[in-house]
């Protein structure tokens, strides 16, 4: 049991360092490990089935849709108008456009519920725009990836609903309300880091502009901003789900790009669609392969072995919580968020509860923690989408990521050791 887990980890890293595409590293290491406990035909068939199963999700459809609408808006000049507007508003601050990036990711994440969709929707037009304004592309990608995880904690959040079910009865409403403060805390810390990093690296700030110019830029952005209102209004008003909002966004940005701004010709659409399909497929193959790998990990009880070892290490609650966090960070490095929540909630929640932690508090901590994993190598959906959308590679964005990881870790520590950050609002609203 432990043996095949060890094989899986070894093969994975060996292939990874040998430049094998990450989806294939995941698939091959899973297959090799699986052959130790399952016969050849059932093993390969099971991996095939898990790969298809990993993609069989309506929520995942948001990925190609937001990638496509992002590309259309990028081509259609909508992105530029939007960024000009934000620039006119807060561009004069140090690292202005990086702050705009964080804020728009938070805003978008707070209506979409999917960090991956946020990265592709915001990233596909803000990263090129930041580069155009003189920012380092790798830094821009790193900021987008980290900032888009705020949407996992700020409601609506599918992962909090999954946690509520995995924990066996924590109130979803309470979890939703609990997510606001930690989400805003994370966004603020990221903004502070961005401003500091931009000052240090000498990234440009924009000159303060006359009010009439600001108004002009804001007005020019109104048709583009309408898209945000369509999405916010549509989702919050109960008109459609996040995936459907993606399709509406495609429809709206298509009309804007082709009919209103006339910056995209009908003949160019095929190329845009192909590009969107390609960006999406890179991510989708990774999700498919990761889904086979997490199946294998569960099948071999690797999560359970980890938790048993944990309880023998220390009796100090503060230390155990720190260890749980470190383990989850490692888990998040390799595993997608949904299987990680489903596998580790039943294992760690009883441990946390025995230390006097509320299931509500634990859920927020876990999702915040795994958010770091979403944008940490080697396996992280947001990281992959970010690199794909930002047209860069993982090893190049690690360096600008480091200060952002530190900000995320500080947010995690504050949320872990100060229960009030998670529990104040739900208690104030009588939900908990």
């Amino acid at each position: 049991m432990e043996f095949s887990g060890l094989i899986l980890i070894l093969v994975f890293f060996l292939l990874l360092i040998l430049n094998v595409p990450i989806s294939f590293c995941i698939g091959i290491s899973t297959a090799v490990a699986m052959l130790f406990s399952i016969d050849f035909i059932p093993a390969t068939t099971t991996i095939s089935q898990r790969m298809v199963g990993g993609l069989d999700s309506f929520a995942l459809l948001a990925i190609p849709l937001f990638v496509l609408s992002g590309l259309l808006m990028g081509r259609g000049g909508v992105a530029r108008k939007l960024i000009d507007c934000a620039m006119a508003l807060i561009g004069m601050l140090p690292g202005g456009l990086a702050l705009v990036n964080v804020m728009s990711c938070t805003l978008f994440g707070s209506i979409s519920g999917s960090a991956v969709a946020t990265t592709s929707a915001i990233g596909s037009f803000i990263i090129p725009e930041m580069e155009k304004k003189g920012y380092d592309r790798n830094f821009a990608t790193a900021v987008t990836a980290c900032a888009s995880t705020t949407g996992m904690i700020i409601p609506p959040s599918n992962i909090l609903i999954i946690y509520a079910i995995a924990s066996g009865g924590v109130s979803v409403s309470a979890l939703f309300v609990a997510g606001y403060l930690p989400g805003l805390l994370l966004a603020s810390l990221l903004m502070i880091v961005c401003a500091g990093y931009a000052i240090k690296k000498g990234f440009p700030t924009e000159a303060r502009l006359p009010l009439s110019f600001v108004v002009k830029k804001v007005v020019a952005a109104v048709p583009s901003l309408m898209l945000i209102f369509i999405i916010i209004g549509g989702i919050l008003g109960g008109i459609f789900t996040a995936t459907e909002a993606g399709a509406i966004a495609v429809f709206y940005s298509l009309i804007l790009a082709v009919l209103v701004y006339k910056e995209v010709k009908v003949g160019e659409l095929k190329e845009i669609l192909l590009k969107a399909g390609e960006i999406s497929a890179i991510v989708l193959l990774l999700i498919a392969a990761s889904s086979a790998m997490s199946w294998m990990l569960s099948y071999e009880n690797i999560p359970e072995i980890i938790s048993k070892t944990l309880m023998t290490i220390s009796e100090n609650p503060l230390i155990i919580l720190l260890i749980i966090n470190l383990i989850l960070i490692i888990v998040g490095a390799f595993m997608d968020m949904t299987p990680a929540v489903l596998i580790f909630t039943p294992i760690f929640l009883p441990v946390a509860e025995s230390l006097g932690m509320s299931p509500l508090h634990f859920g927020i901590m876990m999702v915040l923690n795994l958010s770091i994993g979403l944008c940490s190598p080697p396996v992280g959906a947001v990281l992959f989408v970010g690199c794909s959308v930002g047209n860069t590679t993982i090893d190049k964005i690690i360096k600008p990521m480091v200060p952002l990881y530190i900000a995320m870790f500080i947010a995690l520590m504050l949320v872990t050791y100060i229960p009030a950050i998670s529990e104040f609002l739900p208690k104030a609203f009588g939900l908990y």
Partner: protein
Amino acid sequence: DNKSSKTVLRVGHTLDTKHSVHKALEFMSERLAHYSHGEMSLKLYPNGTLGSERELVELLQIGSLAMTKVSAATLESFVDDMRLFGLPYVFSSREHRWNILESDIGEDILHSLQPAKLYGLGYFDAGSRSFYSCDKMIRSPEDVKGLKIRVMNSQNAVKMIDAFGGAATPISWGELYAALQQGVVDGAENNPPSFYSARHYEVCKNFSLNEHTSIPDVMVISQHIFSHLSDQEQHWLKLAMTDAVQKQKTLWLEAENYALAEMKKSGLNVHYPDKKPFMDAVAHLHDAYKDSIVGQYLMRIKAKQ
């Protein structure tokens, strides 16, 4: 297998560890170890970590998983006979349902799984499904008209909601809470324990116990793995299953009573409607199956009354 004489059967399911089925399976593992003097046991994988219900059934067919608990609704996609349970008002009461499930009719339906390379071990109780709605109480089929009702991914479920005059909207169970809160759908239908454990009462305040369908859970084992067990091992497994079924029936009833009591305590509107108008509205759905295997089961059930 040669190194150790112990047989461990891996069981995957999609329910949480507090669910009556999971507890019954833990009990089943104990009973299996007891009957086999420690030779056999179950290894449980709850929470859907190994896949959705449909995917788990496939894993049984593929042979990488031994057993699973699956709703009869999911088995509709594999075997026609299972469509019986998705029909509304097949049984008149819980007692009637269990009488049929434990009769030759129930046995025959379990046997129908064999062409799908599955062996049906027995049924678990999943109660009866009823409507719940966010805005106004569903007192009669008239109240369903025009409402967007979430249904399971099942043709029977879609047809039934259509027959009531509602608009059937398939949404996955995990996404339903948000869909109800956002108003993407106006209501849904399920049994009280699921309604309670998914906390849908936080957004839907009206529960109407019209009990339109009673779809049991089915315990299945991969035929490939079952046929490789010795006669003695198969016998132990069946004995343990019989014990688990009795245990789960009690646990289910407790869970149902607890959920209803908690729902009433928290100020939820629980309504017991006259079921007759509901039955009349969907009676024609049974006729559509007249000349099929499901029609034969319906006649046999009628003949037993």
